[in-house]
């Protein structure tokens, strides 16, 4: 697999560290539901067969956290962007292939 780092360009897999689902948002610890929400945040996964938005860390490169949109059946990567940009790749393939 080759991942297109928004800063460095396309790089081979072994420069990256995988983290997982990029759509999880850390809950507000003040929320009275915080306990349950943190459990869902840390432990529950959609684990889809198909379109997946996921976090990668370019550890052996520029140390940027990246959101990649990838098909877990084919490993095709549709788009990537820096995680600080809220994880919404420009021209996001988000709607494409969501089926």
């Amino acid at each position, binding site marked *: 697999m*080759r991942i297109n780092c928004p800063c460095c360009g*396309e790089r081979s897999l072994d420069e990256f560290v995988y983290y997982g689902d990029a759509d999880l948002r*850390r809950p507000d610890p003040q929320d009275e539901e*915080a306990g349950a929400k943190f459990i869902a945040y840390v432990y529950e996964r959609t684990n889809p067969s198909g379109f997946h938005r996921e976090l990668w860390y370019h550890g052996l490169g520029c140390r940027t*956290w990246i959101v990649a949109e990838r098909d877990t059946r084919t490993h095709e990567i549709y788009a990537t962007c820096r995680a*600080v940009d809220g994880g919404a790749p420009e021209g996001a393939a988000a709607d494409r292939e969501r089926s």
Partner: protein
Amino acid sequence: MSERDASKEASQSFRVPGMGSIDTTRTITFTFDGRIYEGHPGDTLASALLANGVRLVGRSFKYHRPRGILSAGSEEPNALVELRTGNRREPNTKATTVELYDGLEASSQNRWPSLAFDVLSINQLAGSVLSAGFYYKTFMWPAAFWEKLYEPVIRRAAGLGRAASEADPDSYDKVTAHCDVLVIGGGPAGLAAALSAASAGARVIIADENPELGGRCLAEKRTIDEMPSAVWAKHAQEKLRSTNEVRVLTRTTVFGVYDGRTYGALERVSDHLPVPPQHQPRQRLWRIIAKRVVLASGATERPMVFGENDRPGVMLAGAVRTYINRFGVVPGRHAAVFANNDDAITTIADIQRAGAEVVAYVDSRKELSPAVLAVLSEAGVDAILGGHVESTTGTRHITGATVRTADGEIRNLPCDLIAMSGGWNPNLQLATHLNARPHWNETIAAFVPSALPPGMAVAGAANGLLTLAEALASGAQLGIEAAHEAGRPAVEARSYSTTPEASSIAPLWRVPETKGKAFVDFQHDVTTDDVVLAHREGFAAVEHLKRYTTLGMGTDQGKTSNVNALAIMAALTESTIPAVGTTTARPPYTPVAIGALGGAHRGRDFKPERLPPSYKWAREQGAVFTQAGLWLRPQYFPRPGERDWQETVFREVDTTRNAVGICDVSTLGKIDVQGRDAIKFLESIYINNWGSLAVGRARYGVMLREDGMVLDDGTTARLGEHHFLMTTTTGNAAKVLQHLEFCRQCLWPDLDVQLAPVTDQWAQFSMAGPKSRDLLRKIVDSEFDISDAAFPYMAAGEVAICGGLKARLFRLSFSGERAYEIAVPSRYGDALIRRLMTATEEFDGTAYGTEAMGVMRIEKGHLGAAEMNGTTTAYDLGLGRMMSDRKDFIGRTLGSRSGLMDPDRPRLVGLRPINPKHKISAGAHLLPQKAHRTAANDEGHVTSAAFSPILGHTIALGLLKRGPERVGEIVGVCDPVRGRDILAKVVSPEFFDPSGEKLRG
């Protein structure tokens, strides 16, 4: 003729003068099973053996039947040998792919006592007992006999060749290559594709498993552009080699297709030589990243399935032509040709041209096209149309063929060669590595690629285009397209002229009536009966068939057997071949040496070594080193006269506690943290408070994972208003940096925080012990006041040492002694450790390593990796008090889950043996004093232990159920794997100077 004649043949008597394209002017010698033979450069071991009339080459896996040479390529299931000897021995090597070199040594395998007489060949008499999967049905009683009797016997018979019993002496290499167009296969289609792509100026890599490009061009008598095809191929190869941006990789097999248009290829750099040249690898692994790929891997001929079709002398027709046309070797003197397709017809002329007799042409088809009939009559051979070869005679190689004619008449044809052709299977394995399913093409009666990996196109025979003309045209066109799609300008595809050829086929999957075993998979001895049995027992799904009969599981990966077996199963289930299914190919296309996949990373170079700044000096001191991750750290510094490591460590600890000890702590992770929001950031990362930390001070901090478990600990110093230096444990440096970057980029992107790893920047030495300040005084420039008033415990600041060298000074203590850590730019580390050691002489100080450090940290009850093991909370480790309740921090919410607040959880305690002579070891479990030694009474374990020279007995840290409440209690320390079971007293984890007077001074 009699089968014994072979052994009487004079040297190379099957070589045909004037034929073939190899250099017969030079003669080289080689040995097979100890006997010396002659061959020529350019031969394969197989062609050389055939030239010398050697037909019996190996024995089959299960029945140990005599086997010869079936093919002329990497699909060979039978002719497997042990190549080379000693630590270079290569088992299961295909004689058909081994390039002959002078002095080559090969021997047959999987036979005893000899190839000609193999005791285990009696297995074939028990053929119907050793039917597919028989072993699942027996060897069960009594149970104990499996390991004791049955399995040892089976394992003695198992395997083919023998692996070398010593380390591989050769080296391996890996390369990453990028290109616009990768052409896989150097046959006509591949050559045309590469020429096209090159003409468009593309960066081209063309790879072929043979030593020369050309493929079937070298094996057939054909013409391209009025040139003999072999000559055309030679020109094409020269053209490519002389074109910029074209890399020709011969002896290179593309074995796998991976995601991201990445292709794995193996180059056999030196396998054609006795040993690799100096500084050259034996083989080289290529990772090729290609924008576009043209797959031109050709096709593999199918055997015919008839009785005793495995005897030496039964060969694929295409292989016979290869041996004649390329190597000038005729594999027999009296040949029968048995086929179901037009392509095989050309075999007749080739055999005749080689001066051998074609005793008959047997075709399972009743009607042939006029053109083909014309060829037959011109050749003047006895053509048996609508007939079958039912069986063969002979033992160690064939002496005749039993043929049934269309009208049922049985004829026995004496012959020493049967050239058979069941049609051709496109080599589409690489097209299916990414899970694509091929589809069935009725016209050529074979599977062809359908969906393809991104960026791949398939040319020529690999795509079912079996004629030379189609191969050249499709290759030329796809090469152009590939180059264009890769961003090169569009150019015109040139066309090639060839002589016409016929190519129709009427599939025959198995001969209707046969005598004797009819083999489908030669190497694993899978016969038609086995396929029938698998069907009968319900193993009709293709994967069931393979797994139950082991069909296609051999070193040939079923290249010659899979489709025949599928077809036979389809007939049995009365369904179509595609309905039965296809077997998805997995990498590698052909087997790859494990050494090549490992590459250069072996022995000492398995992983890079990370060296601390004092490494060179420590080596000179004769320090013993230990691995800490990739780091090599001094474990202890033995001195002359010291009996064992223990004595050394006692001395290091004792000296440190009573005078001063010096230790390289540069391996601790260091992260520079800056920014207006740095404090806020640290507050969210650490469980304790940071707002109150003054500039010029350091503080111990603990960070958790989001699930509430302790991630790491260390001190962080405030160097400026918005500038901090964080230290991590040696092992967690990278992990913590990743965690901080995650928090900064993914959780709180708006914070103004900048992170920089600076571990390598600083050589940092700890000076611990009552004399540490005196020692420090000797190197710190006089203008800096390091009195306790000016530089108290946990102070941090910049100083200058040795006359103006800027350094960072921290007053931290891991040992519990008055201690300082001095940090200088790494390049000065070596000089500084030498300076310190000289300066320390007057205090009789010492250097100490990780062992002594471990002892002292346990004496102080400080935490190590064994305590912060990923399953312990701050509460568990006695850090609950540190947790601020006035802020949120990573891990706070989930850290308070009921299960983690359970008072019954094991928590940190100290342990000391009741009997001071007793030893406690880490890993021992803790149970109530008198409790029965079972899991039910297990209450925790010892995490760290060491002998304390100061206290004169072993001390240990442990995690004990309700530990802190049980101080004073006596518990059992149970260590069955070390055969120990003693009693220990539960104490506070701080064994030494609990009040901390010494470290504050």
